[in-house]
């Protein structure tokens, strides 16, 4: 569409003016819009966006701008790019921005499972002696489950 004022250049801007109680809408080129707005400069959209927000993840193409809009990462590599931008915020919210733990490893649970099994086997014997069969069945099932887990871990 051509500019409503000069009829020469392409219209880029919607210009709304309040004239005698009515809102008048014009579609203008940048130059005419600036003239009508008494010298107020029209800032192109790309100049309004801070350059840092255009940083993009090389794997999935998510930009910092996308991330800020959705608060979602696109892939693991995004963390290399965007981690510093939210670490500070996290620090303010939860007073922490670093993870001190390790991966969850099955080997770390072997001891727990074994000691649980020992306790449960003892409990099962006691329940049988007291003829509390309903409870005994529950304990027996849990023993079976933990033995299976132990097999998987090993």
């Amino acid at each position, binding site marked *: 569409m051509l500019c409503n004022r000069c009829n020469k250049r392409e219209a880029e801007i919607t210009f709304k003016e309040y004239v005698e109680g009515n809102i008048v809408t014009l579609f203008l080129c940048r130059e005419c819009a600036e003239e009508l707005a008494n010298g107020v400069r029209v800032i192109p959209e790309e100049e309004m966006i801070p350059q840092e927000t255009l940083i993009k993840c090389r794997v999935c193409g998510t930009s910092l701008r996308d991330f800020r809009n959705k608060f979602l990462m696109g892939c693991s590599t995004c963390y290399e790019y965007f981690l510093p931008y939210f670490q500070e915020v996290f620090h303010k919210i939860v007073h922490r921005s670093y993870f001190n733990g390790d991966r969850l490893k099955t080997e770390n649970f072997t001891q727990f499972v074994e000691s649980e099994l020992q306790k449960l086997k003892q409990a099962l014997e006691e329940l049988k002696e007291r003829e509390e069969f309903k409870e005994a069945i529950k304990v027996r099932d849990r023993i079976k489950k933990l033995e299976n887990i132990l*097999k998987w871990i090993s």
Partner: protein
Amino acid sequence: MDILKIIERVPDFFSETNGNIVQFVVYKYYRNIDGYKFPYKLSVQELNQIRDKVIEVAKELPMWENNYSLVEIQQVAAELTMILYERGILGAEGLQKRNVTLIFDESERHIIRINERDHIKLIFRGAYSEMHEIGEESQIYAALLDKTLNFAFKEGVGYLTSSPRYLGHALSISALVHIPAIFLLGQIQNFSQILQKNLIVLSGLMDTAIQTYGAFVQLKITSFFDTFSETMSKMASALEEIVELENQLRNLIYADRPVEVEDRIYKSYAILQSARLLSLMETYEHLSNLRIGVDLGYIKEIHPGFFNEVFFRILPYHIKVYYGVSEDDLNKEAEMRALLIQELLDKYHYEG
């Protein structure tokens, strides 16, 4: 899959009847397989690859005891989807997304959601009395899956998830609490302080958009760079404090027997027994009042199992599907809800 059977089922993790303040706890682990983009960036083909990979490993896990259901959301009827959603088996994201697959067992204690916002959401649910035991068990399964599927992980950051608020051991712990005494005696401020201190937030019932009704409130904490034990200890200590506060206030009610509280309990009981139309919101409110009446011994003729059965069955799609009510007929839905409550009150009526 027999949809009516699911509707009628009282989930195993929700079957304790001894008037617990904490009704159940839920652990959720958020995981992504290393080398793949997160689900919303994947093509259908890639999503299918992830699904197949996860199913192959997950179906062998010992927690199912060879008895699990596998549901591909794309391929099931809309009504089943809504029932699974209301029961917290499917998440809100799964309602809108393609290629979400669920694996769950009949007890509804163990659930794996594939390709929601993350490749895997591993869910464990159980009673409050089993909180620590289930916590340990859930960590073992998360580790077992990691061993075979190799999840994305970064030192100093933790498991990498699509939403950074789950970093660290990448989990959330939720608990459904019933705190009528706190509500009835206006102690919300004390309750909020406990939550704030432990960085706990309120969330919708069963992770749905359904807001908290009556005195049923769902609490949630996310790991936020924390380890499992750190997250767990915050939730456990908050729950202990809430239980203590609620019990103190219940004792006050029991000792003083304020007439306003008794009035609410008996009015709610009468309404549930005789109303012809019951909306979801008012039903939860009356159930909540009735429950404290039963817990405190004002009302002796209702077996506490009533509350466990009624909890899910009064949800909108549970009613609509079970009684064949059309989608927009809210009046009929309310009528059927009232009828169901009265049938269940009869079923669970006993002589003290």
